[in-house]
């Protein structure tokens, strides 16, 4: 087990968001968190990353309780890609170096540079590594911020709707990269998504959130018309296409 979330509650002053959320993630898992808009998917990711502090519950990464770690220590273990990206006047190379920030004391080392270089190559960013990120396309920028999160050498990767701005090819590219890294390095990825079919293609575990709490959790067996209709209030059929379940709204 690499991450455990135990009875987490989170509320904003005006309303409750998460209630009694509890799940575990193993090494090599790609977990998709699914649910309607506003159900608390992003909030859950931010709680795991200590950007938000849950009022109750314990979250541990590799046996370390994150509430007891500094943000810097958390960042050494958890990489996070937020839903919205702001692009400053940096080159791609600079943006990826920033991923080494949690490990830097005064300046970058040889090892930092080697990691950055490796990740830039892995994600195929070499051809525009000296371009400014405010001049990139949405797909390129998304790859850069994922590269930055990977440069953190995280044990757990949190991605908040990583594919929402991408075209079909870039969606598949980005998800493949994440899948490969997760398997090769035996880390875990937790991804929030809206496209069920993309989630099915990418993830091996799923959590459906409803009203701030876990409605269903498990593998492909929970991708059923009943559960999806309960969660999204839309009738669907789940067909099998080449042994992969496909969700079709009715």
């Amino acid at each position, binding site marked *: 087990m690499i991450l455990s979330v135990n009875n987490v509650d989170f509320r904003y002053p005006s309303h409750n968001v998460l209630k009694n959320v509890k799940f575990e993630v193993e090494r090599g898992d790609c977990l998709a968190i699914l649910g309607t808009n506003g159900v608390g998917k992003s909030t859950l990711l*931010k709680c795991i*990353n*200590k*950007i938000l502090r849950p009022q109750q519950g314990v979250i541990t990464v590799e046996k370390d309780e994150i509430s007891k770690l*500094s*943000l*810097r*220590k*958390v*960042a*050494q273990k*958890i*990489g*996070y*890609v*937020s839903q*919205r*990206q*702001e*692009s*400053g*006047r*940096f*080159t791609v*190379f*600079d*943006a990826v170096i*920033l*991923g080494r*920030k*949690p490990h*830097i004391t*005064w300046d*970058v*080392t*040889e090892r930092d*540079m*080697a990691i*950055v*270089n490796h990740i830039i190559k892995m994600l195929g960013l*070499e051809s525009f*590594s*000296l371009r*400014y990120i405010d001049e990139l396309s949405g797909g390129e920028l998304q790859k850069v*911020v994922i590269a930055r*999160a990977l440069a*953190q050498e995280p044990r757990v990767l949190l991605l908040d709707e990583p594919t929402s701005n991408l075209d079909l090819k870039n969606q598949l590219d980005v998800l493949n990269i994440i899948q490969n890294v997760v398997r090769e390095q035996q880390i875990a990825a937790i991804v929030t998504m809206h496209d069920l079919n993309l989630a099915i293609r990418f993830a091996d575990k799923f959590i459906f959130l409803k009203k701030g709490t876990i409605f269903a959790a498990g593998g492909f067996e929970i991708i059923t018309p009943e559960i999806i209709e309960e969660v999204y209030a839309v009738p669907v059929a789940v067909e099998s296409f080449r042994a992969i379940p496909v969700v079709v709204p009715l």
Partner: protein
Amino acid sequence: MKTKIAQEIPEGYLKYTGRKTATIVFLALLTCVLVVLAINAGSAELNPIQIIMTLLGKGDENSRVVIWNIRLPRILAAIIAGASLSVAGCVMQNILRNPLASPFTLGISQGAAFGAALAIVVLGAGSMQSRAADAVIISNPYIVTISAFTCSMAATMVILALAKHVGAKPEAMVLAGVALGSLFSAATTIIQYFAHDVQIAAIVFWTFGDLGRVTWNNVNIMFFLTITALLYFMLHRWDYNALDSGEETAKGLGVEVDKLRLIGMTLSSLITSVAVAFMGIIGFIGLVAPHMMRRIIGGDHRFLIPGATVMGSLLLLAADTLARTMVKPLTLPVGAITSFMGAPLFLYLLLSREAKKR
């Protein structure tokens, strides 16, 4: 070590960072050249040989007094105050996520002006006398300095307390700064309304900003504080870069954003308040020098912080030297000259960059 690192970096990137370093070094050298010119410029005619001899401690009494007691403190004050105003602006613009932020955003200049007015009118520091070069003289500069510093820091303290209480939200801080600024302006207006015309002249004169007021002691205080702040800012240069990518991303990268914001604001306000208290209000540098550097070398704070520091020094020293020499023997208000010189230069940079983009 260095060469091994170099092997891991694409060659283009080394050229790209090398250009930035070269730009900063060039500006620093330009400042050094300007220092020599500035020592040479002034009402008392000195030749370069006299200057060098004097700096080496071998000059005559007259040039020793002129250089060591009048020109050098003034030049060093320009370099240090320019650096501190500019680097404070650079950091404020980053932590408040607002390109219009400057060292004066939090009501510091209005607070200082109010403090000076209070000292001149109410505390009686402003019995005036006339002199050929200056229209008015403030009889007790210490009270004015202390009062200006206290009031400008009071503005900052109110905002910091507010931030501590309700969370360090950039928009709220900027708005609170604007509100406090107008409160202080109103208070100054009321003081002026009840003041004599000589006192009003003294208040207005104080707000012009004048580097001629500084003493060696002032220079030492400013130097110590500015160096401390610069070290802190440089130590956190990666954090500012992370914050430029968005607040959540910065937190995700391990940056304690609220702490960074509060300490950054405190330090920037402190070095600004000190400079303002000693010299009066010198606008423009803190707002525009960091933007100029951003246009020239980009937004990477590893280079931007030293770059903005040097640019601020250069601009203020150039402005002050012009202010001293344009209409001899008068010294024009340096704050006005900074804007006169800087605004067209900045507009040029703005336009040339936009033109390049097309």
